């Protein structure tokens, strides 16, 4: 297992949390980059990698929060494992099925993190933050899949102008 790309993914998470999160947030709704990267790793890589990468990515994400907890790391690790199995068992091929998996995964990730944090107004936060956040992350994932599958390319964009 080449470890360098995963370290770069972890740096990407830290970079996003520190610099891009506020810039890309819309009305306080931001992209859940940790869940997105973990799910992409789960879709394209093996089970053990998804499990361990989810755990370490969860630790990195939790370290960026105000108070450091290890439980988000466990949740993110579980997300990686679940996404891997969901993807393999259901065996979807289309972009939309991948997006469905991403949406459900990100939403559940938000949900469990909120449960662990245990703040007041759980359903309100779910409605205001988790659901729009999952939608926003899914939209970003959609563009990612379009690029990965070659539906958006430099030549195609160039041909438009």
């Amino acid at each position, binding site marked *: 297992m080449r470890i360098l790309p995963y370290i770069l993914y972890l740096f990407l998470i830290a970079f996003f949390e*520190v610099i891009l999160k506020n810039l890309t947030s819309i009305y306080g709704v931001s992209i859940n980059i940790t869940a997105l990267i973990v799910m992409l790793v789960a879709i394209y890589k093996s089970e053990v990698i998804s499990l361990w990468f989810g*755990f370490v990515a969860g630790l*990195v994400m939790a370290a960026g929060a105000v108070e450091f907890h290890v439980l988000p790391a466990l949740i993110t690790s579980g997300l990686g494992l679940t996404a891997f199995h969901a993807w393999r068992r259901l065996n979807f091929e289309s972009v939309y099925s991948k997006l469905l998996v991403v949406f459900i995964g990100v939403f559940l990730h938000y949900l469990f993190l909120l449960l662990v944090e245990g703040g007041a107004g759980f359903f309100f936060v779910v409605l205001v933050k988790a659901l729009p956040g999952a939608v926003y992350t899914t939209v970003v994932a959609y563009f990612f899949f379009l690029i990965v599958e070659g539906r958006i390319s430099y030549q195609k964009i160039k041909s438009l102008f």
Partner: protein
Amino acid sequence: MSWISTQFARHWRNIHITIIVLLSALVLFGPPTIHTVLNQAIIGGFYYPFYRLKAGWELLLTEAETNAKLQQSLIEASLQISLYEEALRENARLRAALGFEPPPGYHLVPAKVISVSEYQLPVSVIINRGMRDSLTVNQPVINQEGLIGRISEITPDFAIVQLLTDPSNRVAARVASSREMGIVKYKLKEGMVLDNFPLHGTIAPGDTIISSGLGGVYPPGLIVGTVVKVNRDESKPFCRVNLQPAANFHSIEELFVLKPDYNR
């Protein structure tokens, strides 16, 4: 040994999950040092470079904002300084004009040039005084250097001054020392000249030329210019005298209209 490797191969996923759960339990329930060290390692390893980057970027933005404000202040200060310098120059000119005395029978009406009309050189100017200030056509205009011209047209608030540099303007003049007379006019090719001066008249470079008062427009004694060159051609009845105007027509700003006392 083979049993262990078989078990590991069969339950490898559960083993990984168990390791992760044990690690989590260690961090969660173990000594606080582990928790702190892990947090600091992640912050230092992954977050610190970006915190530095963000802080640097924010500092850059603040500096850029400060820089823009300072530049604006600098422009404002430069403008203020140039205004002060202009005021200083005006002050110097007005101080020079302060001790200036009008000829007997006249008093001075100060005026400011608001427009200059040029044809190769300034030929007329508009001043901010007019009929409302009891000025009339043909009143002489001077500054502290000497004769400038006369009022050629007038409106209630403004007056047009025909300068000596206008070729159609003539001044009856005389040499201050010898009192011999001629007519000062301006020629585009030669500049200011003293015309109709006797061929054997007493005149030399450096002599001062003043108005004679005979034309009826300019009072006597106003300095018109200085003799630069004298050409005596025996075949002609008059000599040609080139003059250096007393006033610099390219830098006139404050002028004085000579108003007769009876017209006060």
